[in-house]
Structures are given as C-alpha cells and as structure tokens.
C-alpha cells in the first residue's frame, strides 16, 4: 500500500499504488465520502464481508481512511471516510515517489519535470 517497493508502474490507474481491492474501496470512499462496511460490500458484490472489513482495517491502519462508531436507534456500525481527497492522496504519493527519484538522480528529476510541463 503505497510502499515504494510495492509500486507497479505497469498497472492501471491507482492500482499502481494500491492492491486491486484497496483501490476499489478507496474509489468508493472518495465518491461517497461516508460508507459502512455493509454499504461497501453491497457495491463490491464479489468480495466477502470479511475481506471488505479486513481491507478497510488495513486502510485505516495505514492512514488512508478513518472510522468512527455511528450509533442509530436500531443499528451500530463503523462509518468509514477517506483521509484526504483523491487529489491530496495523489500529492502525497507523488511526493514520496519524487523524493526517492531525487535521491537517486538529483537535479535531473527537476529537468524531467520541466520537460513534462512544456509538453503538457
């Protein structure tokens, strides 16, 4: 989960940085802001509730999601929300990756970014 050694550049979208299940859950959290594990399970029909709960627990422990206990009259459940938008998480990951690149290649990284900016 966004550990430099786990990044797989050949993969699609944010699965470069998250496992496929983590990625699917993060997308849902970004989209809906607040969700219960049951709500997530309903959207991800192919996953078991235990798998969803376990993945959410990992996301909470690694600082990408938050959970709090929500109490209504006839149900108590965890409400999960993302920590940071897709944009801020993107910044966090980019910073991590760039730091490691600068560590290896120094100023050439900045030259490369300049080139990309011109192209874009």
């Amino acid at each position, binding site marked *: 989960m966004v550990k430099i050694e786990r990044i797989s550049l050949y993969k699609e979208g944010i699965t470069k940085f998250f496992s496929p299940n983590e990625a699917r859950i993060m997308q849902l959290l970004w989209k809906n802001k607040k969700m*219960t594990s049951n709500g997530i399970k309903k959207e991800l029909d192919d996953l078991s509730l235990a798998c969803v709960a*376990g993945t959410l627990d990992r996301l909470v422990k690694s600082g990408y999601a938050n959970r709090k206990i929500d109490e209504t009259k006839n*149900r108590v459940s965890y409400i999960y929300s993302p920590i940071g938008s897709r944009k801020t998480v993107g910044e966090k990951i980019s910073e991590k990756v760039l730091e490691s690149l600068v560590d290896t290649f120094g100023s050439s990284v900045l030259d490369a970014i300049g080139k990309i900016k011109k192209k874009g």
Partner: protein
Amino acid sequence: MEAVECFIDCIVNANLVIPVIILLGIAAICLIFFIIKRRYELLLGAQFIMSIIIIINLLSMNCYMHSWIWIYLGIILTGSIIIVLIKYLIDTYINNKNVGSISYLSDIENEFNVQINVIDSPIIRAFIFLKRIYISMGLIERLEKDEIKAVIAHEVYHLRYSPNKIISSLLALASFSFYRYSDEFSAEKYAANVTSKESLINALKKLDIKDSEKRIKNLSS
C-alpha cells in the same frame, strides 16, 4: 505411629517443613471452597489434594526423593507467572481498544444486569473479562439486535456459571491434570432458552465461526 514419626523426621531433616505447610494450606483452601461453593473449578482442588498425597507418599517412601517437591513447586510457580503474565497482556490489550459501553446495548445490559463493553475492532469476538462482557464492533456490525442478545446471553452464562478461567488453569497446572473444562454446550442451551433458538442459530450462521455448524446441530437436536 512409627511411620508418621519417621515421615516428620524426614521432612524436618530435608528442610521441607515450609513447602509442605504451603502445599497443605493451599489444599485445605481448595477443599473448603469445594465444600462451600461446589463449583467445577474446585473439583480440580480435590485433584490438587490427590497430587499432594502422591508427593507425601514419595517423601515417606524415600526421603531422598525430596527434590521432587521443589521441582513441583518450581513448575507451579513458573506456570503461575506465565498465566498471570498472559492475563496482564490481555488486560492492556482490552484497555487500549475498549470504547466503553454504547447506549444501543443498554436494553440488553439492563435485561441481564451486566456491563457490556465494546472493543474497537472489526474482528469478531465476544468474551468475558473481570466480570464484564466484551463484544467487538465487528460482531455488533454484523448482527441484528436480537442476535447480539443471544451472543450476550451465551457470555452471561459463562459469567454466572462457568468456572473462572485463571483459577481453573492454575488448578489444572497444580494437579498436573491439564484438564480443560468446557461448558460451551450448556452456555449455548442457556442462550437459546433465555433468548430464542432462531436468533442464536442466525447469529452462529452469520458469524461463520469455527464449529458453528456443529453447534447449530447440537441446538437442533
């Protein structure tokens, strides 16, 4: 009479007076509790007395076997330290994750007259510790209220009627019986009686814990 004198001589000469008094004292306490309370854990007390009788036999047969009594005390002491240490570790773990009680559960608390504490974790657990019932968020999230009530009833049985786990482990250790007392089936029957069989079976099915099928079968028979 000569045998008794010889025996007393032997323990005095071997400096075993204090350990023998300690052992006999513990055995007496076990026996008294067993007579008063008649709980299963105290049956192990009787086994404890048995093991002391064995040791006394060893001593009276041959005083040079007295090192056995020290080995025995050593094993009990090490075992007790380990058991207390495990208890301490569990205690700190629970305190770290305990979120206190939730008002959603207060009806159930009142009905059974117990205190229910909630463990802040998505894992599925329910257990008793120091006269309180602990139940995890993972379990609460998955069950309806009547099913939670069935799970709590199961734990209430343990709280009221099951032998204390730490005392049982200590006695099992001391008597070398290593007997693990299990009254899961009685707890299940109790829960089904005070709540409903359907709720309990539904809870067991939803939680997908090991042996759940066997437990459901037991209830249905």
